[in-house]
């Protein structure tokens, strides 16, 4: 069996395992082992990919395998990876692994929780390995729907409202996406021949421009909803604030990346002409996202809201970069996805852990926590610094690629947009430091907090996994960025 398919099979086996075991403790262990193996497999794939490339393999996609599914519609289960998907897979594996440990102490309905969580992960993995639009879409929805249950059952606050809103908005996005996919499918053979959902095959032809004009917005907005495209981002603050820790981690960490990934792998890649025609509309929207999210974050009081708005801003940056349609910016987009995935997961993990101790997420009810929970505090500062784009941490690498890529466009429109986007790094600094200052620094606000315990081993494991990723990308980005740049080549060739 193709190693990529294991990425889907292992989670399913893990779920089966969870169904078979008896108590909560075993559930945890099975989940951890399953996702540990998944992590290993993901990295094996990364190394396989690298060695394949080293050995001179220049195929657009490697490790491909394909078998027929719905023959008459020419639907295949086709998997394959390039550098971008490999990177996303590694990210997902890391975040899921961290997520399992971040929810180590989940109490209510533990089995169900882990099953839903891993099901979500299955969808995400499947999405990233799919080369067939049908299976891609299928996995996309598989990834979205467990969110409802996860937030609804284990969430907090107005969880039912948030869960419903999130699910409906995301599914609304996927509904639009579906129409877009139909448009692509039925225009995938303009010169006769068989219609196909296969991305690689569609990329070889040019979809008629009239069709592109119709279906590019559907596809892009469809994915954009998940990528928190203004003004369709409002599920994000509510959803994230209500979701339990691991779910926020996975959702902001990897699920939102499906939007960005899809936006360029499908919308931009297959319909580049319409994309370049309409890019300006979406550039305006994403620029608004970037700045607006950041400004929105400044005045929030709930930690999760801050981070949710911050995600709007950062994910807006991803789409912004994708729309710039050049290699540098797109490299930045991918790195930004990974970077944001790691750091936002880190943020949400930390917020969950802090909440678990203080039972509040309101920053003005906390203060001086650095003294009592230094490990969490330092991790929070690291996440914050990554978020505001400090060199040496992942966010910087991504942002620089994005800004320089965006600036390659010589016209005023793109440049003004870029400079507006750049201003977000200052605003980001403002809200990050504001939170750090209020939450962690200063005198201890409440005497209850003096006796709080610092991170437990599983929490540390979860956090360190994520921090390791952030620091690795931040310090030695060359390997990652080269993998991505090289994989972007066919995409760029197609787009230009």
């Amino acid at each position: 069996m193709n190693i990529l398919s294991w990425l889907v099979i292992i989670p399913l086996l893990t779920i089966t395992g969870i169904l078979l075991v008896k108590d909560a403790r075993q559930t945890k262990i099975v989940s951890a082992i399953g996702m540990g193996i998944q992590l290993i497999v993901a990295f094996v794939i990364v190394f396989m990919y690298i060695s394949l490339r080293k050995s001179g393999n220049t195929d657009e996609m490697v490790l491909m395998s394909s078998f027929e599914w719905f023959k008459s519609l020419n639907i295949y289960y086709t998997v394959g990876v390039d550098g971008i998907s490999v990177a996303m897979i590694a990210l997902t594996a890391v975040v899921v692994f961290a997520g399992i440990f971040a929810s180590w102490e989940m109490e209510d309905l533990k089995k169900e929780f882990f099953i839903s969580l891993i099901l979500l992960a299955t969808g995400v993995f499947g999405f990233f390995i799919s080369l067939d639009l049908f299976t891609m879409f299928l996995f996309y929805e598989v990834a979205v729907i467990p969110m409802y249950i996860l937030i609804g059952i284990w969430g907090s606050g107005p969880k039912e409202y948030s869960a419903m809103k999130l699910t409906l908005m995301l599914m609304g996005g996927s509904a639009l996406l579906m129409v877009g996919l139909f448009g692509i499918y039925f225009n995938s053979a303009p010169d006769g021949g068989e219609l196909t959902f296969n991305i690689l095959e569609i990329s070889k032809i040019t979809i008629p421009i009239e069709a592109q004009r119709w279906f590019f917005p559907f596809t892009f907005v469809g994915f954009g909803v998940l990528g928190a495209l203004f003004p369709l981002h409002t599920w994000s603050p509510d959803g994230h604030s209500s979701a339990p820790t691991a779910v926020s981690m996975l959702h902001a960490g990897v699920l939102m990346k499906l939007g960005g990934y899809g936006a360029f792998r499908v919308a931009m890649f297959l319909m580049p002409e319409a994309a370049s025609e309409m890019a300006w509309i979406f550039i305006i929207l994403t620029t608004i996202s970037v700045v607006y999210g950041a400004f929105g974050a400044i005045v929030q009081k709930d930690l999760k809201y801050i981070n949710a708005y911050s995600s709007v801003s950062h994910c807006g940056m991803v789409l912004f970069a994708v729309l710039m349609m050049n290699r540098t910016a797109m490299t930045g987009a991918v790195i930004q996805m990974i970077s944001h995935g790691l750091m936002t997961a880190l943020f949400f993990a930390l917020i969950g852990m802090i909440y678990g101790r203080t039972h509040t997420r309101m920053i003005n009810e906390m203060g001086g926590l650095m003294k009592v929970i230094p490990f969490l505090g330092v991790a929070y500062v690291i996440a914050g610094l990554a978020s505001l784009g400090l060199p040496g941490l992942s966010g910087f690498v991504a942002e620089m690629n994005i800004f320089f890529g965006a600036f390659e466009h010589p016209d005023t429109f793109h440049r003004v947009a870029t400079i507006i986007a750049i201003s977000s790094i200052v605003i980001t600094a403002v809200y990050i430091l504001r939170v750090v200052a209020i939450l962690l620094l200063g005198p201890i606000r409440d005497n209850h907090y003096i006796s709080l315990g610092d991170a437990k081993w599983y929490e540390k494991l979860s956090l360190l996994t994520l921090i390791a990723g952030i620091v690795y990308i931040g310090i030695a980005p060359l390997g990652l960025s080269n993998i991505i740049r090289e994989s972007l080549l066919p995409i760029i060739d197609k787009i230009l």
Partner: protein
Amino acid sequence: MNPESFMIMRHELVLTLAFVFILVAEVFTGERNKEKIKSIAVALFAIVTAAGFLPAATGSLFGGMYEASGTTTLMKNILNIGTLIVLIQSYTWLGRPENRDRIHEYFLLLISTLIGMNFMISSGHFLMFYLGIELATIPLAALAAYDRYQNRSAEAGIKLILISTLSSGILLFGLSMIYGVTGSLYFPEVAAKLTSVPLVIMGFIFFFAGMGFKMSLVPFHLWTADVYEGAPVNVTSYLSVISKGAAAFIFIIILFRVFPVISMTWEKVIWVIAVMTITIGNLFALRQKNMKRFLAFSSIAQAGFFLLGFIGGNRLGMTTVIYYALIYIFSNLAAFGVVSVIAEKTGKENMDDYDGLYRTNPGLSITLMLAMFSLAGIPPVAGFFGKFFLFVAAAEKGFYVLVTIAVLNTIIALYYYLLVVKAMFINKSEAPIASFRSDFMQKLGLAICIAGIVVTGFASGLFEMIRNLSYGI
């Protein structure tokens, strides 16, 4: 015409035999053994269903009034499977004391409607079609009124029978116009002589209204909710899947075979009706509290989705209609199965009663959740595949606006399906439905449905098989 040629109508014959067998068995069963009839009948029907899969002859009988093809056999088999599940699900309910002395009636009425549907599907002439449709409808009214001592059941019965006669009157009036223009009632001849004149269009619309009643399309749907709510749960499930499925089958056959000439017209009619059906069905379903009524409106919306397969007049459309019907049978029967089990044990039918169900009855909750996801079209369960392909079928002919409206409607649909999931999984309840054990037949019924929901989607072979048996205009 030799005796072997009657084997062409094997499905109907076998059903008739079963019908007679049950009738006779009832006569010869003693008062104390009446209960046994249900076992016999279910077993018998299982055999009938299995027999349906034996290689079947194709051809036509009675000078073309009756036609059997691979397509019709497939449709009949699908209906058989659905009916079998309904019977299995009814098993426990039939054991109730007030039903004891008329168990056989249930089976007889049900099987006769099925015979009617089979004839309807196999008809090659409007007379056969009319007889089939009446045979499929009139006993249903009796079934709807089966709970003699329930006001609601009686009300359901009268509403069904009166609207149904009205609709058949209208349908026939339409047919008479078509007859007036073409001078024939044989499908091929009508198709050949049909022209796009106003009288034909008027006739078609009258005919459409009659079929719209059977499929409960808006605005001919208003009986649906009341009848579904009033009728016994198992009858409702039969009504909502088998009766509706059969109507969809014959409707698509007639559209494709008889009315291709005026396809430009019926595309538009269907476009309008589909939008109305999906939207109105969804809007009503939003506010329902009674599970049966809720499922009624949901099934109205689902009927609208069927129309997406009709509209293109393409082979893919027919394929997906049949495929989706199968999936819909499993999904809806799973939903009704759970509702029936709970109604059986506790007498509760309201959504609020389901609060916190997962904590007490996880199995039922998961089944219902899968059913809801399947109806909503959420992967990886089968409903996703069915809906996706229906949309593909409509998109193939360029009905993108319709598809867009439909997909946006799926969001509303998702909302109310999730309300059920929410009730079971998320809502807390002071007094949840107590934990109970379902009996074997209930479990069996649900298990078949779950297997269907899970497997049908992935089974591409099934889809291909259906496609091979389908045709377009």
